[in-house]
C-alpha cells in the first residue's frame, strides 16, 4: 500500500511517500512495523498522541483495520484556516 507522510512527519522520515509491503492488520500494527525499520521512523512515531492518521483519505484511529486499504497517511494535528 501507499504510505504518505506530511509536515514534520515527512521531514523526520525524509520522504513524502513510499510503497510498503505489509500484512499488518491495523494501523497500529503498521506503525509497529515501521518503527522497527530505522531510527528516523522510530523518531517520527515516538509519540502517537502527537500524530493523526488517515486511511484512504479519511481521518481515523490507530486501531483502524487495513484490509483492502490502498493509502495510509500520517501527519501532525491539522493547522488550517
Amino acid at each position, binding site marked *: 500500500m501507499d504510505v504518505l507522510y506530511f509536515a514534520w512527519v515527512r521531514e523526520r522520515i525524509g520522504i513524502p511517500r513510499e510503497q510498503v509491503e505489509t500484512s499488518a492488520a491495523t494501523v497500529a500494527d503498521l506503525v509497529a512495523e515501521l518503527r522497527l525499520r530505522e531510527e528516523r521512523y522510530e523518531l517520527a512515531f515516538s509519540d502517537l498522541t502527537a500524530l493523526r492518521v488517515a486511511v484512504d483519505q*479519511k*481521518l481515523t484511529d490507530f486501531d483502524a483495520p487495513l484490509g483492502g486499504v490502498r493509502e495510509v*497517511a500520517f*501527519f501532525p494535528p*491539522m*493547522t*488550517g*484556516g
Partner: protein
Amino acid sequence: MRVVVQEQPFDIGAETITFAAGHKEMGAIVTFTGIVRDLPDDPLQAMEIEHYPGMTEAALTEIAQTAIDRWELGDALVIHRYGRLVPGEMIMMVATASKHRKDAFEAAEYLMDYLKSRAPFWKREITNTGESWVSSKAEDEDALTRW
C-alpha cells in the same frame, strides 16, 4: 456548494459579490476571511501551507455538506490556499447563505472550527531565525465540542 483548494490568490471582493448575487432568495450572507498577519514587529517572513491533495477537497466537501444539512443553509463556499504566502495575504475564506442570520453565522463558525482541525492543512512559519511548524492549539480542538 463550492470547494476550492488552490495555490494562487483569490479575489475576496469578486468571490463575495458572486456568492451573494447567486443567493438573492437568501436574506443573510456571512463571510469569514483568514489573513497571514502582517505585524510590524513580527519577524515572520512567510507562511508555507502544506496540504494533502485529494483528501483536502474531500474533507472540505464533507464539512461543507454537513453544515448545509445541519443548518437551514442555501449554500456554502470554501476557498483555501496552499503554498508560500507572505504576511497580508489572504489564506482562505468561507461564505454561507441562509434565510436567517443566526443560521448563516453559526454555519460559518462551524465551517471554520472544523476546517481548522479536520481539514489536512499544515502551516509552517518562516522567520528571520528559522522555520517551524505551527502547533495545533488545544482551544481549536476544544472549539469542536460546541458542535
